[in-house]
């Protein structure tokens, strides 16, 4: 058992290393002048991220299959989040190959994957029996995965939104060496952001509904005052405003990017607030 856990941690570290290598390669490629070399190195970066994704997956399978009282739920969940963001990014990359986006999104993936290798000391006895039984509940698992996909959509949208703000600022300021020339076009960045949000929103909504339903079933009440729940609902409502304003009032581009940033901030705060949450902290102790 011990050795399998150690392996799972090793694979998680390999995954982190590969993400970091992918990021470094993408950075290096952006500095190159020669288009052929640039293509080759961006190809390498993408391959490294894909390989990192595989290792992350193996690591997760091992730690889940050997799920024991000692298992670190926090590490598993963080690993899962890294895995889902990486998958989402790879799909976006496949569709639009927005190279500069990898410079923004890959560091975020590295951060989450890094957190997945730094497990906090597990309390003696591992997660509570209740938490353990809950993690074996398919609905709770679905709740987590759906919310994570919503988060992944947000991560890509916020990365794209940041690039949009940089490019837009360059064009508005009429700066002579506009960054727009190396970035994807405004319309493309806006499109990536929008599509990512569009995919993420229904999944996040479904994840929240499942969570609320189960909270009601288990605890007999929905803990709306709980920081994680509150922040998640806030993020969700901004998400909704974001899409709605786009459809009705044509809010896109800059305003959309700012709102995405707010939404992302709330989601991150919600994630960090897990530790303070009555409902969710049981997984971490």
């Amino acid at each position, binding site marked *: 058992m011990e050795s399998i856990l150690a392996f799972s941690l090793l694979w998680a570290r390999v995954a982190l290393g590969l993400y970091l290598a992918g990021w470094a390669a993408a950075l290096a490629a952006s500095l190159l*002048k*020669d*288009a052929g070399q640039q293509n080759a190195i961006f190809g390498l970066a993408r391959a490294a991220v894909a390989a990192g994704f595989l290792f992350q997956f193996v690591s997760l399978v091992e730690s889940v299959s050997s799920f024991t009282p000692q298992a670190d739920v926090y590490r598993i969940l963080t690993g899962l989040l890294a895995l889902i963001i990486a998958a989402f990014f790879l799909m976006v990359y496949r569709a639009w190959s927005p190279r500069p986006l990898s410079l923004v999104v890959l560091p975020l993936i590295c951060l989450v994957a890094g957190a997945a290798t730094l497990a906090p000391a597990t309390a003696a006895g591992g997660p509570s029996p209740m938490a353990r039984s809950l993690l074996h509940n398919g609905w709770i698992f679905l709740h987590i995965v759906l919310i994570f996909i919503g988060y992944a959509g947000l991560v890509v949208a916020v990365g794209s939104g940041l690039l949009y703000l940089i*490019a837009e600022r360059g*064009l*508005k300021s*009429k700066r*002579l*060496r*506009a960054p*727009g*020339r190396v*970035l*994807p*076009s*405004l*319309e*493309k960045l806006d499109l990536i952001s929008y599509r990512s949000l569009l995919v993420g929103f229904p999944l996040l909504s479904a994840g929240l509904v499942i969570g609320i339903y189960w909270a009601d079933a288990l605890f007999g009440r929905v803990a709306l005052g709980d920081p994680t729940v509150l922040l998640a609902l806030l993020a969700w409502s901004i998400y909704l405003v974001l899409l709605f304003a*786009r459809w009705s*009032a*044509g*809010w*896109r*581009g*800059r*305003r959309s990017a700012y709102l995405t940033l707010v939404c992302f901030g709330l989601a991150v705060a919600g994630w960090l607030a897990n530790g303070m949450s009555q409902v969710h902290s049981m997984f971490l102790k």
Partner: protein
Amino acid sequence: MSLLLLGISHHTAGLELREPLALPEVKLAPALRLLAEQPGVTEGMILSTCNRVEVLIAGAGEAPDLFRFLAVASGQPSLPPASHFYQLRDSEAVRHLFRVASSLDSLVVGEPQILGQLKQAYAAAQAAGLVGGELEAALSRAFRAAKRVRTETAIAEQPVSVSQTAVDLARQIFGSLENKTVLLLGAGTMGAAAARYLMQQGAQRLLVLNRTLSHAQVLAEKHGGTAHPLEQLGELGEQADVVIACTGAPQPLVSRADAARFLGKRRGRPMLFLDLAVPRDVEPSVHQLDNAFVYNVDDLDQVVSANLEGRRQEAARGEEIIAAEVAAYEQRREGRAAIPTLVALQAQAEALRAAEWERVRKRLGPLTREQEQAIEGLTRSLMQKWLHSPLVEIREAMQNPGTEAARRLLTEMVHRLFDLPAAGGDEKEADALTRLAHE
């Protein structure tokens, strides 16, 4: 064999001096024929563009009077003073050729046309049978140098005309121009040029609006667009992704409120306004609206001149590449210079050996096939072993001779030492030998 280049360009003479010397396509073939007839010319080509007229020849012995040739070819009895021309030899000519090919010598540094023009000039010379080993080597290296400068520096990346900048800005906003609509306000030349370029680069629709409808119709017909009276701006504005304004109107035609209305109807899809008119056609405050980008004449000029400055900086890196390429070319050429001598030496040794063997063979009586082959092998390897060291030494000495005169002296010494046919005697033969050696 040496290269000689005579030229006149925008660096040395004004248009009124260059113009009469130009050799456009119709005059080029007769000029090349005339060039072939010049004494001492074995190879040659003529490059004639709006910015330069250059004659490059390879030949032996006394250099021909290229001034006179140019006067006759262009039909100008009197040429501009010699100070307006440049005459370059060998490595200087090669360096110039490489710089021209790489667009480092161009009026707009980094412009892409010159390489194509040079390739055409080369093709014309080839068609006239005026290209041999020397020009082939120089030109193929020039094309290579041009490619390196283009790919290894950012010399051609930044747009340097208003039209190019318009397309560049549109690309930064919309990505592709496909499915995009261009609205041209007014029928001014600059605006029309920018609109035409946007259409060439893939924009889908062109709407031409003008106070005088007939002018709009002429332009619209030319570029496959539709013509409308200026009053329709209010209805058509929302359809435009790119608005090019170039009217002589004293008041702005597009107010902030207009633009806001367009953008609202477009649900925030961005609009690019290129205001080429003075006084301006688009209210400057439109730029403050979300998703609206207004560039006026000054903004565009600033972009263009900054990019030209950027090109000049990149040109310095281009010059480094050129220096390296010229050095590489020189080294190859010097290596090539030794080839005829080396080939002659080997040929002479082989002829001697074959003659001696033929003579002795009759006296040896009947021999088996194996015996014959053994003696052939023995004599051949003796010759080769003995020649090895001189061949290596001669090649090395001729690659680093210091000066052209030193190389000539060296060649002559070797020829006399080994009693080879006179050095540099027959250029055509030497050339054939060179090709043989390459094969």
